[in-house]
């Protein structure tokens, strides 16, 4: 059997390898965390579109604050919640560069709500990649605006009480209502099929920007947080399907500026 494998393993038979637009740094994310996958497909898209040299990415504050250690392009790190404003500053002064933010739910839907809403409302020609895992991961698993009703976290130890802390915020549906958004979609990266679909969505988002199609391209990726949810990676994805997807249904919400009527 050994020689058979060595026969297969050679350059002509290569079908999948790490993109050069990901650095060689070991990812700081927990085992099985969707951030790594989301990083990877984003960089694969930039490679396939040949725009790595013309793209500037913005990392948030949160688990993906260190995105610039893993994304092999010019990157900026923005203050918590301010990435859409930082992106606006770059895109307005470098209109021919490709600009995207990569943010978590605490960053985009809590402290950065105003920046998110207004960048979308101004129709900035940027891509926003929004990883929603229903929790603040970096700081140790606190409740986020996207935490589900009854969902436990270190700041909702008895489960999120909607009467006290309100309901989960569906930022993606909110921004889809704004005329300034062009493409709004919600994806996931927990199965091969979903990863491929998410990658196609991210590619479409960047193609819109490359072709100067006005408006924000907003890609939410519902993801797991096995450390914060205190589950194994495999179990966290199962839990995500059963609990997160009913509240955050996958699929395109707005395409080419038109809401997709369900």
């Amino acid at each position, binding site marked *: 059997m050994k020689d058979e494998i060595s026969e297969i393993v050679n350059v002509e038979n290569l079908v999948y390898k790490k993109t050069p637009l990901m650095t060689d740094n070991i990812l700081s994310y927990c085992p099985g965390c969707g951030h790594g996958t989301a990083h990877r497909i984003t960089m694969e898209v930039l490679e396939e579109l040949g725009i*790595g*040299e*013309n*793209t*500037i990415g*913005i*990392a948030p504050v949160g688990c993906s*604050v*260190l995105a*610039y250690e893993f*994304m*092999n*392009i*010019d*990157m*900026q*790190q*923005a*203050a918590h919640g*301010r990435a859409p*404003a*930082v*992106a*606006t*500053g*770059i895109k*307005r*002064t*470098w209109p021919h*560069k490709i600009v995207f933010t990569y943010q978590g739910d605490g960053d985009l839907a809590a402290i950065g709500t*105003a*920046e998110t*809403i*207004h960048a979308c409302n101004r129709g900035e020609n940027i891509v926003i990649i929004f990883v929603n895992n229903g929790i603040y991961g970096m700081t140790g698993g606190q409740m986020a605006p996207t935490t589900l009703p009854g969902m436990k976290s270190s700041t909702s130890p008895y489960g999120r009480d909607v009467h006290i802390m309100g309901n989960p915020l569906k930022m993606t549906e909110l921004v889809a209502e704004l005329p300034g958004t062009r493409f709004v979609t919600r994806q996931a990266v927990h199965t091969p099929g979903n990863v491929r679909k998410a990658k196609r969505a991210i590619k479409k988002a960047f193609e819109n920007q490359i072709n100067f199609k006005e408006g924000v391209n907003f890609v939410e990726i519902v993801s797991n947080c096995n450390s914060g949810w205190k589950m194994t990676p495999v179990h966290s994805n199962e839990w995500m399907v059963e609990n997160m997807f009913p509240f955050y249904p996958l699929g395109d919400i707005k395409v080419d500026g038109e809401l997709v009527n369900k």
Partner: protein
Amino acid sequence: MGELKLMKGNEAIAEAAIRAGVDAYFGYPITPQSEVIEYLMAEKPYETTGMVVLQAESEIAAINMVYGAAASGKKVMTSSSSPGISLKQEGISYMAGAELPCLIANVVRGGPGLGTIQPSQADYFQATKGGGHGDYHLIVLAPASVQEMADFVSKGFDLAFKYRAPVMILSDGLIGQMMEKVILSEHTPRWTDEEIIKISPWATTGKPATRERNIITSLDLDSYRQEQHNIHLQKKYKEIRENEVEYEEYMCEDAEYLYVAYGSSARIAQKAIQLGRDKGIKAGLLRPITLYPFPSEAIRRLSQQVKGILSLELSAGQMIEDIRLSVDCQMKVEHFGRMGGVIHSPAEALQALEEKIIGG
């Protein structure tokens, strides 16, 4: 010779920005400085020099737009007034940490809180001691005329790019709102993309295959590296202190008493000095033009020839601390200043000198 115009201080900053080849201005309305963005919107410099003018949803968003553009090597600025500048402090600290050149104008109004819309100088500590978190300093320029409001835009950017650091113009509502003659300099063209990449090779302009990626961040979870970064910043501030101090002396040659005052208080002090000399009181003025770096040596030198120093500030007294430090508290240094947006008169300034220094 530049163009002579009669303008408000706020308008002079805006016009000077267009002429200095600024790439973008991100602002937000707040009295007493809304004329800056209003003037820029009316001038539509996007159609002439290509300068972007954008009104943000908040001062926080505006300063972070400045962050993004500055980190990409562009010449960018914002302006606001006291409460708005407080909102920008986090962004300013990030830019000091990430070493981003930019210009921030603060047209100060009375505080604290919503305070008033009248002039004040009560943001001195915030501007010179660092209103944000961490060990950092802004280079702080204090204009005392509409002419200096215009001149300090290009001066500010020169310093910002020389030291890769944010620079603040610390003005006040009086200088922002009053009209004076101003000579406006010729147009300097905006930098081309190639010039930007040459001038700021560290900037995020898109990573070609020929270099490593540029990362603009103020974060380093390795505290030993972060300490090295802080040591580097402190070296920069030391260099700034050694090379960039600027001040002006007025009637100090035979002065027996000294006013130290900047911005509008300096103009009031000059009048008080004239009134005093009519009564045989020989006082002079040292006017700091850079509040950071503070002109300590000049004050120390002048203190040898005078019997006392009065710090004239539209505040409860903040710069007075730096004056006392300059003379190691070895001589009489007192403060006088109206607050809450009330402007002290030259007569009051003279009376304060008589009571607190001469009589005291």
